[in-house]
């Protein structure tokens, strides 16, 4: 079955062009032009990924993103015309997994969508332990003291990447490559924001993290098991 992508964009020409590109790459696109109708469309269609424009009539992209994130971990890639930090960080903090600054190359967009949809299921059971957390990799479950913690697929990938090599220090660039699928270095703010989001869910005290540690000037590493 073709992966379904919901395109939320009010610019009809861009939406149509996105549709052409997505179809030619083997996706099944659906369209909604109004922010206010995006959530209803999501509930109805249950797409595998959402391409969300930040500036929308009705309800802006950030609010749409927040609303969808509140009920689902579905991958959301934001399309933004603003590369300014405030906009990007605001978008990421509202729950978007990744963002594309217009004008982007179609191949790059497709590559990012593929990364977000990629689910390489390990053959055998893999269980990781880190800082009191139990991670069931094939089951996509994270729990502390038998209590499940809800993570988005991206946050889960990020945590697994760190937990698999507990001694290694990951630079932001390396994480971008492994988790986001960037070929060459991109915006490291992406990593910062998602690490903050991840910490807020898994750390006892996000101000003093024990699981995802910052290595100043370099990047991040996993804390002791």
């Amino acid at each position, binding site marked *: 079955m073709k992966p379904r992508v919901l395109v939320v964009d009010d*610019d009809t020409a*861009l939406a149509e062009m996105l549709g052409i590109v997505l179809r*030619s790459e083997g996706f099944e696109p659906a369209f909604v032009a109004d922010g206010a109708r995006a959530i209803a469309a999501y509930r109805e269609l249950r797409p595998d990924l959402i391409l969300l424009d930040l500036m929308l009539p009705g309800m802006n992209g950030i609010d749409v993103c927040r609303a969808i994130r509140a009920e689902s971990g579905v991958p959301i890639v934001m399309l933004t*015309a603003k590369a*300014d930090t405030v906009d990007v960080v605001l978008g990421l903090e509202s729950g978007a997994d990744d963002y594309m600054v*217009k*004008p982007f190359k179609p191949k790059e967009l497709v590559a990012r969508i593929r990364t977000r949809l990629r689910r390489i299921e390990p053959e055998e059971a893999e269980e990781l332990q880190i800082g009191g957390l139990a991670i069931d990799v094939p089951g996509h479950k994270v729990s502390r003291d038998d209590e499940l913690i809800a993570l988005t697929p991206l946050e889960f990938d990020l945590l697994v990447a760190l937990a698999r090599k507990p001694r290694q220090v990951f630079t932001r660039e390396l994480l971008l490559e492994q988790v986001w699928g960037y070929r060459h270095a991109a*915006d490291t703010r992406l990593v910062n924001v998602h690490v903050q989001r991840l910490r807020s869910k898994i750390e006892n005290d996000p101000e003093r993290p024990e699981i995802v540690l910052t290595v100043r000037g370099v990047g991040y590493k996993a804390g002791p098991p």
Partner: protein
Amino acid sequence: MAYYIGAAGAEFTLFRQRILRRWRQSLQLRIVALTAGITLAVIAIVGYILITQITTSLISVKQRAAIARSTQGVQYLQQQLQLVSGTPGGNINAALSASTQYLSQVASAAGIFRVITVQRDGLDNNPRVISVNSLQIDVIPTDLQRVIGNGKQAIAYATVPLDGSTQTVLIVGSKVPSVQGDFELYYIYPLKNEQDAVASVQQTTTLSGLALVVLIAGVGLLVSRLVVLPVRQAAQTAAQLAGGDLEQRMQIRGEDDLARLATSFNDMAASLSSQIVRLEELSKVQQRFTSDVSHELRTPLTTVRMAAEMLHDYREDFPEVPRRSAELLYIELDRFESLLKDLLEISRHDAGGLDLEAEPTDMVGLVKKVVDAHQAVAREHGVRLSFAALNGPLNVELNGRRIERVLRNLVSNAVEHGQGAPVEVTLAANDTAVAVTVRDHGVGINQAAAEHLFDRFWRADPARVRKLGGSGLGMAISLKDVRLHNGWLQVWGRPGAGANFRITLPLGGPENRLTTSPLNLIPRSETGGWLGGHPAGRSRLVARADAPEDSDGQL
């Protein structure tokens, strides 16, 4: 002991400095001190004149009366002596005693007095004194005795023992010639009353003078407060305004000069703050405009871009003309996009309010990454691109994205203009700064280039074919990026000798000021050339002798 004196001296100096500072700083103190000082001087002069006048007139009245009295006394004594000599068996001594007694009792306008009559035999220096209260000759100064002896009437002031105390007295002496021989008649007037009167006047004058000084100093204090307080308020308000509190205003009371000062001050403050608000709004409008243009342009550009890419992907299926068109569309869109990106970037800089977003970054790694990324292009141009770090890993507070962009710009420019000659990238640091130089041995730069290299859309050679693309804004953006870090971006160059670009960034973040750069801007072997960039007043020709050590960065 010497130390103690020294310490005391130092203490005194300190005290004096404190007083002097207070004097310089307080207008009020100066006004009060000056008014009081001038008043004191005037009162001292007036008082002195007043007291002198009163004393003189008191004394002269006394003196006139005393002389008149004395002259009458002489006449009376002469008559008495004549009578005695005309009377056979007359006792001259009895007559003298009686006369003296009589003269002592006659009232005088000159106040109370004493009388001494002295009989002197020609050769006998031992005078015989006739007086009422057993006054002795020693109350009369010998100078006066001598003058009287020579036959004159004279007066003298003296301080003599009288009635058991020492008193200042006026003495009028006269010679009384007679057939019995020469006598001397002295009137002695104690000046106690006059002295009391003068002392009383002095006291009154001093007291009222002091009261006047205090009064005028008080008035001075009051008046100066009236003036100084609004001035102080103005100073305080101005300081608060300067500190950024644009709402601060002065209080206006009445309609006098100070009220006008306050009004003008407030007008100035209002105009200033409205200007600032206007500029801030302008900046905001500019930022919003940039952001809007960005959004409005980027959305259709995205569509065009995707469409062009689609066409480009299928170009092999097209006939010749549409195929080439699709290729050109695709290639030129890249240029269009980078130009748009640069335009938006520089207008963001222009709008101000950019956050640096610095984080500790390994400068050596950053430079190495940029150099490595350009090796392929360098090989294409036949340029040997090398990197030498004179320091090990170096964490610098900077925005990696911006500094990397600057380095990319410099290295690609050096490769492009290197004419196949080697390009050397060097990094060095000292305690306060890190510097990177990018040296090429290509066409070099002339005066115009040094002056305009960092200007927007300036091209070294209008006929030059730009192989590496670029919008013409790269250098201008680079300079802005470096200045955002509070750093320097400078260039040295000479036609035919290549160019040397130098970035200097402060270690420990942009709040530190640069004073020196660890690397020379003018290469060691060079003797002249042109300088440009920031900081530099104007680009200019330098000779090596002019700038033996240019690493202080002051071009």
